[in-house]
C-alpha cells in the first residue's frame, strides 16, 4: 500500500512519541492502515493521518492512569522550550498529572498537538478545521487549569531544561 509505505514511518514516530512503546505504536499504525484498506479515503494525506493516529493513541491511553504515564514521559516535552510553549507556567510532572484529570478529550488532543508535537495555534486550527480563536480558548483552558492547579499542587524539585 503506497500510503503505508510513504506515511507509515512518520506515523510510527508520532505514535511512539505518544506511547513510548514501539510495539504498541506499530499495532495502532497498522490498525489505522487496515481500516483505510477497508474504507479508503480520497484525502488521506499526512495531516489527516496524523490526526487519525493521534486519536487512536489517545483512545489507547484513555484512562487516567495511562494519561498520567503519557505526561510523565513527556514532562520535558510538555514544558516546551523556555518562553515559547507554556508561557510562564512551570508545568512539573505532578502538575501535569493533575491536569490529566480535568481536561476533556478535545483539550487533550490540542494539548498533544501543542506541547508534544510543537504545533502552533494556527497549525492546530488548520488541522482541526476550526478557528485559531477556538484553539487559543482551549489552550487558555489548559493554562488556566495549570494555574489553578499550580496553586494547590506542591511544587516538585526543578528539573533541567536544556
Amino acid at each position: 500500500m503506497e500510503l503505508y509505505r510513504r506515511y507509515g514511518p512518520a506515523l510510527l514516530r508520532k505514535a511512539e512519541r505518544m506511547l513510548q512503546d514501539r510495539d504498541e505504536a506499530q499495532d495502532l499504525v497498522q490498525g489505522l492502515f487496515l481500516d483505510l484498506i477497508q474504507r479508503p479515503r480520497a484525502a488521506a494525506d499526512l495531516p489527516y493521518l496524523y490526526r487519525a493516529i493521534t486519536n487512536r493513541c489517545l483512545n489507547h491511553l484513555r484512562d487516567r492512569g495511562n494519561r498520567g504515564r503519557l505526561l510523565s514521559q513527556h514532562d520535558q516535552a510538555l514544558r516546551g522550550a523556555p518562553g515559547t510553549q507554556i508561557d510562564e507556567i512551570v508545568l512539573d510532572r505532578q502538575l501535569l498529572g493533575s491536569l490529566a484529570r480535568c481536561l476533556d478529550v478535545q483539550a487533550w488532543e490540542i494539548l498533544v498537538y501543542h506541547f508534544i508535537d510543537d504545533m502552533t495555534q494556527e497549525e492546530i486550527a488548520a488541522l482541526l478545521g476550526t478557528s485559531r480563536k477556538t484553539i487559543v480558548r482551549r489552550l487558555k483552558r489548559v493554562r488556566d487549569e495549570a494555574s489553578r492547579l499550580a496553586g494547590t499542587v506542591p511544587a516538585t524539585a526543578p528539573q533541567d531544561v536544556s
Partner: protein
Amino acid sequence: METVSCVPVSWLRLERHALGELGPDEQTEIAGHLAACPGCRARADLIAADGGRQLPPLPAAPPARSTARPPGWLTFAAVSTTAAAVLLVVWARPGSGPQLGGRRIAVKGGDVTIELVRERSGSIAWEPTSFTAGDRFKLLLTCAPPLRVYADLVVLQGDGPAFPGTTSRIGCGNRIPLPSSFRITGPGDASICVAVDPDTPPSRARLAGGEPAATGPHLCLHLDRR
C-alpha cells in the same frame, strides 16, 4: 533543546518537509530554519536517521469470514525475558479473526473469554493445542465494557515459570491483546496460565505454581511439544 529564539518547527511540518510535501516557499523557509537552529535540526536528523527503518508488513486481507470483521495479522519484534527467550508478537487488530471461541473465565462483573493465537511461518492458528520451536503466541481477551480487568500470564515448562510481560490492566472490548507475547523455548510440554481480576493484580507467586496453586479467576491451557 532549542535556543530561546527558536520557535520550534512542529514534528508534522518536519515530517512533511522531509517528504518534500510542502510548498516551495515553506520548504525553503524550513530549510533555512534548520540551518540556523540546532534544536530543530537535531529533530530533522532524527527523522532522517530513522528513514531506513523497516515497516512491519501490511498483510493482504484474508478470506472473508462469516462476519464482517476486519482481518488480522501478526508482526514481530524481538524482546527477552528472564526465564525464557520470547519474541514479542503484536496482535494488530482487536476484533479480527474467526468467530469468538476460546474459554471463559467468570469474574465479578461478567465473563472474560480467553483466546490463544499461534503464528507459525506466517500462518495463524486459533486455540492451538501444540507448539514447536519458533512458534509465537498471543493471548486475546474479550469481555464487555465498561469492565476492566487486571490480566497476567505465565508460561510453565520443565525449567520453571516465565512471565513474558508485566501485569496489565485491560479495558474490556473485543479481542484485546495482552501486551506480552511470547515464544516457548523451554524443555517439554508447556502450560500457559492466565489470570484475570477486576479488582487487584493477580498474584504472580500463585500463578507461577500453575493450576494447583492458582487462586482467583484463572485458566490454564496445555500445549504439547511437537
